[in-house]
């Protein structure tokens, strides 16, 4: 934090010398004060049995009349693939969000969700009356070039008043791989989430980070395929552009509801070595390793072993596992119900056929952290619905295997004493089978009323099932 503060101070000093004449900061600040807010977020972070609250303070921007706010979600989100793979639940859940406007009013807000690709977070202010908030609209700026200057207002530490300080940065590169992204220098990590202005004072987007495709937009299971990758250390800050933001504002990434496109294949990069081994003159492609039954890929007639070489007319040049995410992202961002076109190669007995295939994408399955959950205060356990990744990781049959996943077991709780562990999949509670959090909740609430002396849970753990007898101690 100190470091960031210093760099902001430095920026303040050098600002007038370098580019002051390009920006009308007084006018911009006046506008910014209308829609810029300070978010005080309390995040409950739980790791297995442990649970701690963290406070996070950050900048937010009101983007709709009814009080939708966007902010940098990367600080509070959790997508830890390893723990999810291991069935452990490391979870960061925003418990409460306090919104403070620049004129000192406070509101509470409800957390909505975080976009997996831009890492933008969304929350909604709760106003008592039908408040109409002042909000910001973003305008696309397509003509940015290297050397152009941009400005932001960064959030100063809590003990400094007023809260906003201007900073400037320069467009340093317009990269095309792994995606089109306007890179900037002059900003730092702690300014992520601030609104970016061009020299005319127009809000053109939000300061964000270019994601390594090896890490962006992957489900935990897919993430495991690339966990040998070393994290990039060079901060790649730049513009999350207005187009993307506007799309997200229209359709925020609601927890429990997603609209990401999904094809239903397991995939592998076609390395040049494998291509050469199979006698294919290709500089990359996607090998389909498995087609999920009844998925869009299955309906479209894709088969295990097929090699996707074109998507919507564009060549696929995926020749390394790290770049699979580019393809996955394109599918994901296309959205559900979208039609996509593939060109595939099918190898049969030494013959290679080229086929064109159309598929209509489905809605992407939920990730474990998006799944609906429920906290039971008697047994002190948190449970969630099973998601696609659970079936995938444990190789369970999607049709026949049902249950709810134990996310957390509180230390010293009845459940812990009885031997329940995070990662257990509860298949029945008492004499009732439970196939969803809703059913489990109904059953647990009934138990809360009946107050039996003990409850027998039937759970699945590490390829086996067992009964867990939990003794109760009702007040």
């Amino acid at each position, binding site marked *: 934090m100190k470091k960031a503060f210093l760099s902001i101070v430095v920026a303040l000093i050098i600002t007038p010398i370098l580019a002051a004449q390009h920006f009308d900061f007084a006018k911009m600040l006046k506008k910014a004060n209308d829609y810029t807010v300070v978010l005080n977020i309390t995040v409950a972070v739980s790791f297995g049995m442990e649970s701690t609250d963290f406070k996070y303070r950050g900048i937010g921007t009101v983007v709709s009349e009814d009080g939708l706010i966007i902010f940098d979600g990367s600080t509070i989100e959790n997508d830890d693939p390893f723990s999810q793979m291991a069935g452990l639940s490391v979870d960061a859940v925003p418990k409460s969000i306090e919104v403070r406007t620049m004129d000192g009013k406070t509101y509470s807000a409800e957390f909505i969700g975080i976009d997996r690709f831009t890492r933008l977070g969304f929350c909604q202010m709760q106003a008592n009356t039908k408040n109409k908030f002042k909000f910001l609209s973003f305008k696309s700026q397509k003509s940015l070039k290297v050397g152009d200057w941009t400005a932001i207002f960064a959030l100063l530490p809590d003990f400094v008043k007023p809260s906003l300080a201007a900073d400037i940065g320069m467009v340093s590169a317009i990269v095309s791989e792994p995606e089109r992204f306007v890179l900037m220098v002059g900003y730092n990590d702690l300014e992520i989430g601030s609104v970016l202005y061009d020299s005319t004072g127009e809000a053109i987007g939000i300061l964000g980070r270019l994601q390594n495709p090896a890490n962006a937009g992957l489900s935990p299971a897919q993430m495991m395929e690339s966990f040998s990758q070393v994290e990039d250390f060079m901060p790649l800050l730049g513009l999350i552009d207005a187009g993307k933001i506007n799309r997200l504002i229209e359709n925020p990434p609601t927890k429990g509801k997603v609209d990401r496109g999904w094809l239903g294949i397991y995939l592998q990069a076609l390395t040049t070595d494998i291509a050469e081994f199979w006698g294919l003159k290709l500089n990359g492609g996607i090998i389909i390793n498995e087609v999920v039954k009844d998925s869009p890929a299955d309906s479209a007639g894709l088969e295990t072993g097929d090699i996707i070489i074109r998507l919507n007319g564009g060549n696929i040049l995926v020749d390394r596992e790290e770049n699979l995410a580019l393809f996955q992202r394109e599918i994901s961002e296309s959205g559900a119900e979208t039609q996509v076109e593939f060109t595939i190669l099918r190898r049969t007995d030494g013959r290679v056929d080229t086929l064109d295939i159309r598929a209509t994408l489905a809605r992407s399955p939920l990730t474990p952290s998006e799944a609906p959950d429920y906290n039971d205060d008697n047994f002190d356990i948190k449970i969630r619905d099973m998601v696609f990744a659970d079936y995938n*990781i444990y*190789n369970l049959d999607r049709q026949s295997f049902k249950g709810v996943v134990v996310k957390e077991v509180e230390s010293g709780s009845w459940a812990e004493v009885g031997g329940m562990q995070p990662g257990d999949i509860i298949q029945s509670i008492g004499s009732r089978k439970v196939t969803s959090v809703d059913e489990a909740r109904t059953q647990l609430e009934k138990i809360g009323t009946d107050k039996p002396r003990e409850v027998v849970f039937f759970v699945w753990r590490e390829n*086996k099932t067992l009964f867990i007898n939990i003794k109760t101690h009702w007040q």
Partner: protein
Amino acid sequence: MKKVLISLIGLVIIWSAARSSILATSQADVYYARDRVLPALVHIQPVVTDFRTGREMKQSVVGSGVIFHDSGYVVTNYHVAGKAERIICTLFDKEQVKAELIGGDPLTDIAIIKLDLSEYHGSLAMAELGDSDSLQVGQFVLAMGSPLALSRSVSCGVVSTTDRYFSDEARLPSGEKTGRYNTWIQTDAAINPGNSGGPLVNLEGRVVGINSRATIFANNIGFAIPINIVKQVIEQILDHGKVIRSWIGVQAQAMQDMEGWFGTDRDRGVLVASVDPRSPAEAAGLQAGDVILKINRRDVSARFEEQLPYFYKLIADYAVGTHLDLEVQRGENVIYIEVITRELGDLMGQDLACDEWGFTVKAITKQMAVENQLEDTLGVFVSGVKRVGPAAEGGLRRGDVIREINEIPTPLYDDFYGKYNELIAVPADKVLLTVKRFGNVKYVLLKIKKETDHSGER
């Protein structure tokens, strides 16, 4: 259950009687026991092979053993000699002789080796195997062996517990699960690494257990396999070279306090927690939640986890292929189910080090398939990948199942073995493996660099 209950009552009575015998114990008793067993103590130094780092690694280890037969048979732990390639033994008179592995049983952690006495001119001592069922808590025992390779060491203590239960999820260093079919004698006689395989001896000078485990974070907590279990294992190994067990694929759970829930009487029945996929129990229709009341009209019960090994052993002791009539309580009904036992088989398959390709594989046994949730036993199981080598570079991982080489199926270990030898003879510079990983297919291309073939580490 009845049997255990009786022996528990027995313990209380005998304990009060035992006080006087503690006082009566004299130095002479310890000398007596020492003289009867110590001459039969063997210091064992096997060279064992380990495949887990992706290549065949040889390692010299140290353990203990005791001679129980005048033709030179020695009982020790499986984790000492079960994977031995060659064995050198030092006898009590400090003479060294070679020994060969006769057979081993990872599930009870017992192995039998035979001394090569052709060049030994001393007189061979031999220990008498006692009765572990009559052991009492508090009874004096001696542990003999080579703690930290310090041979011919004797320590003294008491029996701390006669039937310690451990979860059968424990694994031997070589990776096999162990302990399902026995409980353990716990003792405070000092047991340290190197004591493994040595005898636990009562003051009558008879072997009552084979020392095999110690807790590394505690003092005076050591564990021995009861000799009555060991005697049966010895008999089977001498007869068949291994222990043959019947298997039905049921995971049982202690009933403790759940009788009310399952509607059974106290001390009656064994709760089925889980049924292994593709097992005889599954084929016969046994389900989780069933309570097995009788097996071939014999009452079975496991109210406490200490009783589970007896239940498993009861089934294991039937001849393979026996038709078992199970009386089963399911919900409110009592039903009868016939299960035909199959042989448990090897926990793990044969090892092969594919040095040229930089990994090791195991043949897949029934039990490996169950444990690793494989849908069948086809292919070979990658047990280790060398840190640097064609396999590591190609992305092969431990736990992958190789199903094809160059897109030619290799369902059996021998198919794989044949194809591997064929390709390293050529030698092929590129090999495509089709593997299954988490149930999905993956292609792994091995690029074999010829110049590094023979310069590899050894």
